[in-house]
C-alpha cells in the first residue's frame, strides 16, 4: 500500500519548515537511508532520509514551499508492484490518533507566538520598523557591536562553523573570522574562566552558553570571579563581559535542559541580569550589555527565537538596562512579567479585556537592577498585582516583588499579590505533564480574577 511521506520535525521546537529542495523526482526508486530532500528549519538546513523502500509515486509539496507544517504529507511512496494511481487513493495517517490524551492537557506542540505590536519608547518620530525575529535581532546586535569595537569577541560551543547551535551567531564567523568568533571545546567551566581572564586583560568577551543549564558548570566563575572582582579589588578592576544564551524551558527536553535561572542570578550583587521578550528589546539590551563595564547575564529563550517583532531601523538602537516597559496600560490590575512570561501575561490581558477587566502589563526586561518604581507606580494605580514567570516558585522573582510591594505600597493594595510561576517540580518529559508544569495563561487569568474578586 502506498505510504505517505510526512514533513518531519527536525528539532524539539520545530513546527514548520521550508521544503528547500527535492533530491528525488517522481518515478525514482529509493532505498531506506537515501536522502530525499533538504528541509530548512529556523535553525538549520537538514537532509531528510527515506525510511522505507519504494518508488516515489507523487510529490505533493513543491520544492521552495515555505511554512510546511510538521506532519503534512509531502510525497507518496509506492511499494513494489503498485502503480502511480495508488498515489491518488492513499489516506492520510493520523499521527496522534493512538495517543490517549488526558483531560486537561493536549499533546499538541506549544503554539508559535504570533507577532505582537511592540510599544516603543524614545523612538524618533518617523522611524521605520522592520519585522525581525529575536534570533536575528541578537545576531544584529552582536555584529553591530563587533564592528564598533575590536575588543568585542564571541566564544562558545558551535558559535562559529556550525553557525550557532540555535543559529543565533549565523554569519558572524564569515564577517569577523576565527580570531573573534571562537568555537570552544565543550568545557563551560574552563572557557567561562578563560573569558573572565580575557575581560580582566581588557577585552570584552561575549560568552554564549548553548543553554544556561550548562552554565551551572561555570557558575563559580560567573559569581566568584566575574561578579565579585570589582568589589574585592576596591574598584580597581572589573569584568566587562556578557554571558548569554537560551534559558528556561524549551520543549520536551526534560528536567536537565529546562530551567529558568533568572532568580538565581538576580540574587548576586555585581551582576546585571537582563531577560528580554521582544526582538527590539533583545537587540537594544544586548547592545547595551556588550557596552556595559560590568558582567551582564543575558537570558534568552529558545521558544521565542523565531518570533518576529518590529525593530526600529535606527543606526544605533540601544535600550537601557534597568528600565521596565509598560506594554499596555490598564486600570484594574498590574501584571508584572519578563521574558517568555510576557507571552502569558499579554494573552491573559487580551482575554481579560474581553471580560471587561483592564490589565496593565509591565515587562521588567531587566531583573537586576529591577525598575521598582515602574512596578510600584503601576500597583499604586491599579491596587492589585499578579506576577508571571516560568521559573520555580520558591524564592522567585515574583516572591521578591511581592515583598517589595508589601514594604513600599502596602496601603495601596486591595488584595494580596499572587505569583504565577512554573510548578515546584523538575520538568517532566511527557507532553501533557510538561504543559502542566509551566505557567499557563489560564492560571494568570484565574489569579487576576482572584485579586479583583470577580
Amino acid at each position, binding site marked *: 500500500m502506498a505510504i505517505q511521506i510526512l514533513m518531519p520535525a527536525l528539532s524539539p521546537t520545530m513546527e514548520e519548515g521550508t521544503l528547500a529542495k527535492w533530491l528525488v523526482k517522481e518515478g525514482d526508486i529509493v532505498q531506506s537511508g537515501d536522502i530525499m530532500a533538504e528541509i530548512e528549519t529556523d535553525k538549520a538546513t537538514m537532509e531528510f532520509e527515506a525510511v522505507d523502500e519504494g518508488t516515489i509515486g507523487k510529490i505533493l509539496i513543491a520544492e521552495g514551499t515555505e511554512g510546511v507544517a510538521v506532519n503534512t504529507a509531502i510525497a507518496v511512496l509506492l511499494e513494489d508492484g503498485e502503480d502511480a494511481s495508488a498515489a491518488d487513493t492513499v489516506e492520510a495517517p493520523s499521527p496522534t490518533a493512538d495517543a490517549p490524551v488526558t483531560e486537561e492537557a493536549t499533546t499538541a506542540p506549544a503554539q508559535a507566538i504570533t507577532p505582537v505590536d511592540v510599544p516603543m519608547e524614545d523612538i524618533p518620530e518617523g522611524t521605520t520598523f522592520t519585522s525581525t525575529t529575536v534570533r536575528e535581532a541578537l545576531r544584529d546586535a552582536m555584529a553591530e557591536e563587533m564592528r564598533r569595537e575590536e575588543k568585542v569577541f564571541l566564544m562558545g560551543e558551535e558559535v562559529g562553523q556550525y553557525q550557532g547551535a540555535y543559529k543565533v551567531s549565523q554569519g558572524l564567523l564569515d564577517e569577523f573570522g576565527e580570531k573573534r568568533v571562537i568555537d570552544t571545546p565543550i568545557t563551560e567551566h574552563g572557557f567561562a574562566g578563560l573569558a573572565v581572564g580575557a575581560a580582566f*586583560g581588557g577585552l570584552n568577551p561575549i560568552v554564549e552558553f548553548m543553554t544556561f543549564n550548562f552554565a551551572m558548570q561555570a557558575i563559580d566563575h560567573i559569581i566568584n570571579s566575574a561578579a565579585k572582582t570589582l568589589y574585592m579589588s576596591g574598584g580597581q578592576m572589573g569584568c566587562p563581559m556578557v554571558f548569554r544564551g537560551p534559558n528556561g524551558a524549551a520543549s520536551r527536553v526534560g528536567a536537565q535542559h529546562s530551567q529558568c535561572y533568572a532568580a538565581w542570578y538576580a540574587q548576586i550583587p555585581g551582576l546585571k541580569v537582563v531577560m528580554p521578550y521582544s526582538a527590539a528589546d533583545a537587540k537594544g539590551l544586548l547592545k547595551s550589555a556588550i557596552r556595559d563595564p560590568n558582567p551582564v547575564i543575558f537570558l534568552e529563550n529558545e521558544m521565542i527565537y523565531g518570533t518576529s517583532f518590529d525593530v526600529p531601523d535606527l543606526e544605533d538602537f540601544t535600550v537601557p538596562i534597568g528600565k521596565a516597559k509598560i506594554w499596555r496600560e490598564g486600570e484594574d490590575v498590574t501584571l508584572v512579567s519578563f521574558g517568555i512570561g510576557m507571552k502569558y501575561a499579554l494573552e491573559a490581558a487580551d482575554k481579560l479585556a474581553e471580560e471587561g477587566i483592564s490589565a496593565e502589563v509591565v515587562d521588567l526586561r531587566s531583573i537586576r537592577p529591577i525598575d521598582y518604581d515602574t512596578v510600584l507606580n503601576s500597583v499604586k494605580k491599579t491596587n492589585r498585582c499578579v506576577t508571571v514567570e516560568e521559573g520555580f516558585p520558591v524564592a522567585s522573582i515574583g516572591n521578591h516583588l511581592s515583598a517589595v510591594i508589601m514594604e513600599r505600597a502596602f496601603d495601596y493594595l486591595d488584595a494580596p499579590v499572587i505569583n504565577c510561576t512554573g510548578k515546584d517540580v523538575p520538568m517532566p518529559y511527557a507532553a501533557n505533564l510538561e504543559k502542566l508544569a509551566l505557567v499557563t495563561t489560564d492560571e494568570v487569568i484565574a489569579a487576576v480574577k482572584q485579586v479583583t474578586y470577580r
Partner: protein
Amino acid sequence: MPAKKSTRKSNISGEELLEHYKNMLMIRRFEEKAGQLYGMGVIGGFCHLYIGQEAVVVGLEAAAKEGDSRLTSYRDHGHMLACGMDPKGVMAELTGREGGYSRGKGGSMHMFSTEKKFYGGHGIVAAQVPIGAGLAFAEKYNGTDNVSFTYFGDGAANQGQVYEAFNMASLWKIPVVFVIENNQYAMGTSLERASSTPDLYTRGEAFNIPGEAVDGMNVLAVKEAGERAVAHCRAGNGPYILGVKTYRYRGHSMSDPAKYRTREEVQKMKEERDPIDNIREMIEQGKHATADELKAIDKEIKAVVSEAADFAQTSPEPSVDELYTDILR
C-alpha cells in the same frame, strides 16, 4: 624531598645574587610580621603565609619582563611583593584598612594591581588557572609577546578546570606559563595521598604541553627554568608547565594544627634546603658582600616591613560609605 644540590658552576653576578637575596628576605620578613600581627588579632580571617616558598616567585619574576601578567591562589603575599607592589598597601589590606590595595574590601586573598599586572589573589582553588589562560589569551589577541604567569598549587592541580584550561591553552597556542607550586601538602593532604602521579610537571603531556621539574628551593634554578618557559611562550609555541617542588614551613593557614607532618620533616627542610640560607651562602662564599653589608640589608628590610606594619595599623578602616561602592561600575 630529595636534596638536589646544583652541580652547575655559577657564573651569576654578585649583584644578581644580592637582588634575589633581598627580594626573598623581604617576603620572609613580611610574612613573619604578618604572622605576628595575626597573633595579635590585627589581621583576621584567613592568612596563608608563603614562608619557605620564596625562591619560586622571586626566580620567576626574574624571568619576567615588563607587561607580563601574573596571578595566583590565596597564598599571594609573596607574589605581590615580588612583582613590586607596595608592602604598605599589601599589609594594610591584610589588616582591612583604607590604605590597602583593595581599600580593605578584599583581604589577604583578594588583592589586585592593574599597574603591576597582578590579577589576584583567588580564593577558589584552581579558579585562577583558566583566568590566567584568559589573560594570556588577551595578550595574544592584542598581538603582544607578553605572557601570563599562572601559579597554582599541588592541590589545585587535581581540579578539572586546570585540564580544561590546559586543553584550550595548547589548542589555541596561548602564551601562558603554568607554574605548579608543589609545596607537597594540599592543606593537610600530602601529594602522595591526593595525586595518582607524583610528577606534576607531566600533567600536560596529554595536551602536548611541555613541562619540566624544577627545584623550587633554588632561586637560580627557578629563574633558568622560567627563562626557558617564557622563551617558549613568547615564540608563539603555546603554554609551558613548570612543576616546581617547594616547601611551606608554616601551616596551610594560621589555624593549622600540623598533625599531618612531623616537626622533624619541617626542621630538616629548614636546615638543609632553605632558599634564603642557600643564596646567602653563595654570597658569602663568593665574597659578594661582607657580613656587615648583609646585616645592613637585613636591617633595611626590617625597617620597610616595620613601616608597612605601622601603616597597616594606623591607616583608618574604610569609610562606612564603602559598603555600597564598587559593586557596579
